[in-house]
């Protein structure tokens, strides 16, 4: 084990190394990897954004939601309808989708957050179940195209971004989708980080830890919970827009639009580390990796794997992750991020600044 001081040259070197490594991977993927691999990473980014949004309400504020697949769907449908029926440029649909999901999120949260625990879970569960049904409803078919969904949702012409230059064809689209997802991932991360590390964020954790004490501290429980739910819904809608733009289609039974989506977001968040900023990132990457390596397990394997999963014609990733979750709850209560941190301190310990030396003189 090595001890280094917070803010020392070694600490900075370590940080720089970490950032450089991540940057290298981020650039390596779209320039060196196959188009399908790039697509997998984009998919991971989409899921990470959704899990991050859920983390805000569940991980940090302690309000359970099984309804986030609906916000994901709202995002996807908003984009598809605006682009196909109203000729919007895809870029602007992000704003529209986020705004709509924010409003819907707040409206659902207002009555739902007055109730707690299992009841809140049930209300949001109902939202998740209702959404695909609503979309399929005959009377809404003029808007949503019913069960068959909306396809060919895409950029007619890919925007030209600096550095990336002009991108064309299937490969170009994949690369563009990758960077678009990456930018939104960074935005989402920064929004979450900004919220969590602020005075507002302290009030979120306060609500999670002890609602009564938070209230007598002057935190307005209803306003805070409703706002954070709205912001979370808006962020989740961004993931929905991204997913639709990447795949070009959205259907009522589509990926992550149904209840299964909510479960996947939940699994990613908890396995990665609920209530940590990096949890969804680690969880999302692990999930997509699992999803892709195990996809064939059901149909085309023999031996032990075939015996275990042969009955299923779907990717058993959710099942495996669910089982992993049970194990993780015992060995790593703070998820994979917590586990990594615990193992990491056996290698390097960053000694925090001595107490009382880092005081800014004004403000917080």
């Amino acid at each position, binding site marked *: 084990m090595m001890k280094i001081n917070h803010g020392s040259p070694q600490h900075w070197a370590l940080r720089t190394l970490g950032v450089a490594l991540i940057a290298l991977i981020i650039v390596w993927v779209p320039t060196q990897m196959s188009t399908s691999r790039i697509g997998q990473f984009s998919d991971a980014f989409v899921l990470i954004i959704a899990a991050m949004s859920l983390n805000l309400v569940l991980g940090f504020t302690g309000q359970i939601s099984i309804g986030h697949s609906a916000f994901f769907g709202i995002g996807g449908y908003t984009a598809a309808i605006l682009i196909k029926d109203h000729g919007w440029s895809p870029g602007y649909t992000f704003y529209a989708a986020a705004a709509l999901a924010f409003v819907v999120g707040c409206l659902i949260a207002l009555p739902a957050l007055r109730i707690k625990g299992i009841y809140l879970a049930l209300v949001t569960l109902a939202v998740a179940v209702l959404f695909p049904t609503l979309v399929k409803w005959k009377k809404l078919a003029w808007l949503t195209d019913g069960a068959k969904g909306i396809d060919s949702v895409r950029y007619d012409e890919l925007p030209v971004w600096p550095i990336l230059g002009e991108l064309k064809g299937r490969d170009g689209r994949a690369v563009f989708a990758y960077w678009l997802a990456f930018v939104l991932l960074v935005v989402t991360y920064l929004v979450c980080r900004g919220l969590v590390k602020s005075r507002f964020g302290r009030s979120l*954790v*306060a609500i*999670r830890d002890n609602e009564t*004490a938070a*209230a007598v501290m*002057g935190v307005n429980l209803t306003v805070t919970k409703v706002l954070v739910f709205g912001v979370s819904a808006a962020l989740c809608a961004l993931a929905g827009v991204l997913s639709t733009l990447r795949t070009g289609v959205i259907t009522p039974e589509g990926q992550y639009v149904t209840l299964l989506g909510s479960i996947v977001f939940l699994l990613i968040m908890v396995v990665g580390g609920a209530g940590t900023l990096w949890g969804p990132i680690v969880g999302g990457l692990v999930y997509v990796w699992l999803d892709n390596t195990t996809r064939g397990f059901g149909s085309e394997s023999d031996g032990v794997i075939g015996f275990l999963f042969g009955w299923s014609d779907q990717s058993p990733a959710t099942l495996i992750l669910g089982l992993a979750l049970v194990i993780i709850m015992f060995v790593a209560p703070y998820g994979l991020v917590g586990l990594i941190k615990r193992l990491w301190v056996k290698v390097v310990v960053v000694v925090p600044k001595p107490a009382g030396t880092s005081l800014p003189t*004004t403000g*917080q």
Partner: protein
Amino acid sequence: MSLLSITDLAAGYGPLEVLHGFDLQVNQGEIVVILGANGAGKTTTMRAISGMIPRRGRIVFDGQDISSSSPDSIVRLGIAQVPQGRGTFADLTVEDNMLAGAYIRRDEVLADVERWFDVFPRLRERRSQRAGSLSGGEQQMLAIARALMSRPRLLLCDEPSLGLAPLITQELFGVLKKLNAEEGLSILLVEQNANLALKVAHRVYLLETGNVVSSGSAAELAADDSIRKAYLGS
């Protein structure tokens, strides 16, 4: 001058009425103790004052009627509460707990943190430790320090001695007394230990099943025979 004036306070949970309409006053600069057995309604009284539960009757704080105000606006007016059982935020650090206590303020917050660390030096040593990892006594100190961060004029303190060793309790009451004497902080304190209560209190209310059955100065109550029997065990 009366800082907090309560008339005919009734409150409860759903259909269950726990407080049956009593009066209570806290004057500026006083330490008032509510004494009563388990289940008498002491905590319920605190909750009713801080706006956590629906209540009937009149509650006036510093000339303002707060009987239908929300908890956060009551905090803003200058009433802070230390809930029973501490209620620190286990996953926040000691320092973040203090900052959360200053939720309604933005000015000079860090200076205040240092100030209360001067009063509770054990908390300074543990400032970046998770609050959940503190000892019971330390958590109680943190709960009080955190409540003080909102710069209250009236501190509601619900059984701060609960589960603390006598020595720690004495230290804590010493601090409360000092705050009252030196800063003019008015305190409404719930306490089961009558000996202790009568030592710090200016005035005492005796609560039994949701009604005030007796009240007066600490000296008066200490001299009352029936109270001595029931609460002082002599």
